[in-house]
């Protein structure tokens, strides 16, 4: 697909962003709120943004450093979620029995907030960091499970027939047919899971106080320093967007290889 530059794609989003900043400015100029205005926020956050890799203290670090700390935690919990979620999805997709066994558990577990999983994690692992990893893994795995199972269901009968006519073994069918055919669905799951993992990380850091973008936001709030709040929110949002876009590129690339 070719991307063509158009003014519409540049101008219209800018209008939206400008409107948001104007609203922010208007709200902050009202007397009844402590919300710092865009310019105050920028003045206070300049150091964080312009020296993104500087480390001045445990929580007082450049923005990229903080994001990096959070990403490391995601890099522990998210793969764990995929490692559990993908085989679970493949099993649910290929066996009606297993589907019926696991589906109710999935339905009940899925809506539980990361804040609720965290204490259980502490109880189980007696370690704050392991508890965050646990919360990330268990919260982020469900889109992967559901989409992988859906992908296995969507494999055309023709592909199964090929496996049956050639008498492929179970493992060969799994690696030569099921996984390649399911890959685009899996990746949709991986992408949604990554979004969730990023969502959980902020909550987890607030609870543990670990260094990271969420932990920083919370410690600033506790110290009644409000000038960094919006900067943190924007950083979290932008990081999520970048990760989502990268996953979308991978997803589209895979789709072009697995469909006729």
């Amino acid at each position, binding site marked *: 697909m070719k991307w063509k530059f158009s003014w519409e794609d540049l101008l219209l989003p800018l209008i939206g962003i400008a409107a948001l900043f104007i609203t922010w400015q208007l709200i902050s100029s009202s007397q009844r709120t402590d919300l710092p205005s865009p310019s105050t926020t920028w003045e206070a956050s300049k150091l964080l943004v312009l020296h993104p890799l500087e480390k001045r203290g445990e929580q007082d670090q450049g923005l990229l450093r903080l994001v990096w700390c959070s990403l490391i935690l995601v890099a522990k919990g998210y793969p764990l979620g995929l490692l559990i979620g993908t085989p679970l999805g493949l099993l649910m997709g290929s066996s009606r029995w297993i589907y019926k066994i696991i589906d109710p558990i999935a339905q009940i577990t899925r809506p539980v907030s990361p804040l609720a999983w965290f204490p259980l994690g502490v109880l189980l692992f007696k370690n704050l960091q392991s508890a965050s990893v646990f919360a990330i893994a268990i919260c982020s795995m469900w889109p992967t499970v559901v989409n992988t199972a859906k992908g296995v269901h969507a494999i*055309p009968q023709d592909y199964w027939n090929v496996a*049956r*006519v*050639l*008498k492929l073994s179970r493992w*060969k069918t799994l690696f030569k047919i099921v996984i390649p055919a399911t890959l685009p669905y899996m990746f949709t799951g991986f992408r949604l899971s990554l979004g969730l993992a990023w969502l959980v990380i902020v909550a987890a850091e607030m609870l543990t106080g670990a260094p990271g973008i969420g932990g920083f936001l919370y410690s600033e709030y506790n110290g009644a320093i409000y000038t960094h709040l919006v900067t943190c929110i924007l950083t979290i949002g932008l990081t999520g967007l970048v990760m989502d876009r990268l996953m979308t590129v991978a997803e589209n690339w895979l789709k072009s*290889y697995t469909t*006729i």
Partner: protein
Amino acid sequence: MALLELQNVCKGFGPAENRTEVLSNINLSISEGEFVAIVGYSGAGKTTLISLIAGLLKPDVGTVCLEGVPVTGPGPDRGVVFQNYSLLPWMTVWQNIALAVDQVFPQWTSEKRAEHVEKYIDMVNLTAALGKRPGELSGGMRQRVAVARALAIDPRVLLLDEPLSALDALTRATLQDEIERIWERDQKTVVLITNDVDEGILLADRIIPLSHGPQATLGPSIPVTLSRPRNRKAINHDPRFKKIRNEVIGYLLGEGSKQRQPVPTVLPIDSSMPLKASA
């Protein structure tokens, strides 16, 4: 002894109260090296018939035997070319065929298997495209890959399920000639399912019409006595061609077009249930 034999085969789908009997009383006997075409209406159950022979479906009644042994499931002794190619889109032409060859001839050396794959890609004139994926090929090329894959596993019977129906007329004619050429060379036993009477006559030794469903059954077997190789242009003026054509179409439009009355469902009488007026 017949290589492939179907006896009293019946197949239906759906639960008892809403059942469609697709095929009923199918008897078919095909000898080694024969090319048989089965021609019928769309929706008559042609694909069901080929799936039964392939072992992808089990008959409700009757038996399917290959070399006297009842068929219990699919296997590489019956190579199938499906209507919609069924190539794996993430594999190249080479990989699609190699998957089949590696699976069926594990005892061979990898050089021998590679040679074998190449031979069959060459047979269907796709050597130039062997590194391409199905998505980069035209419909006709895809179907040739499917034919090469089915032939490369050296099946006892080659089952072709409307292999050319999705193609345009010109590609169709080219591929018909190609199938005939390959058959002349390999002398494989072939069952071709088609909805094109002319295609059946052009390719087969014997053409058998399949009646209108539900409860479709095979009509009289009509031998195609035209000498080979058959020239599609000359054949049109051959009186024997016209006679065979009329016979097949005569059956399909006459006796074979009648929808058979479904047998009324007889429920066991249960004294605890009040009798209902029949619908």
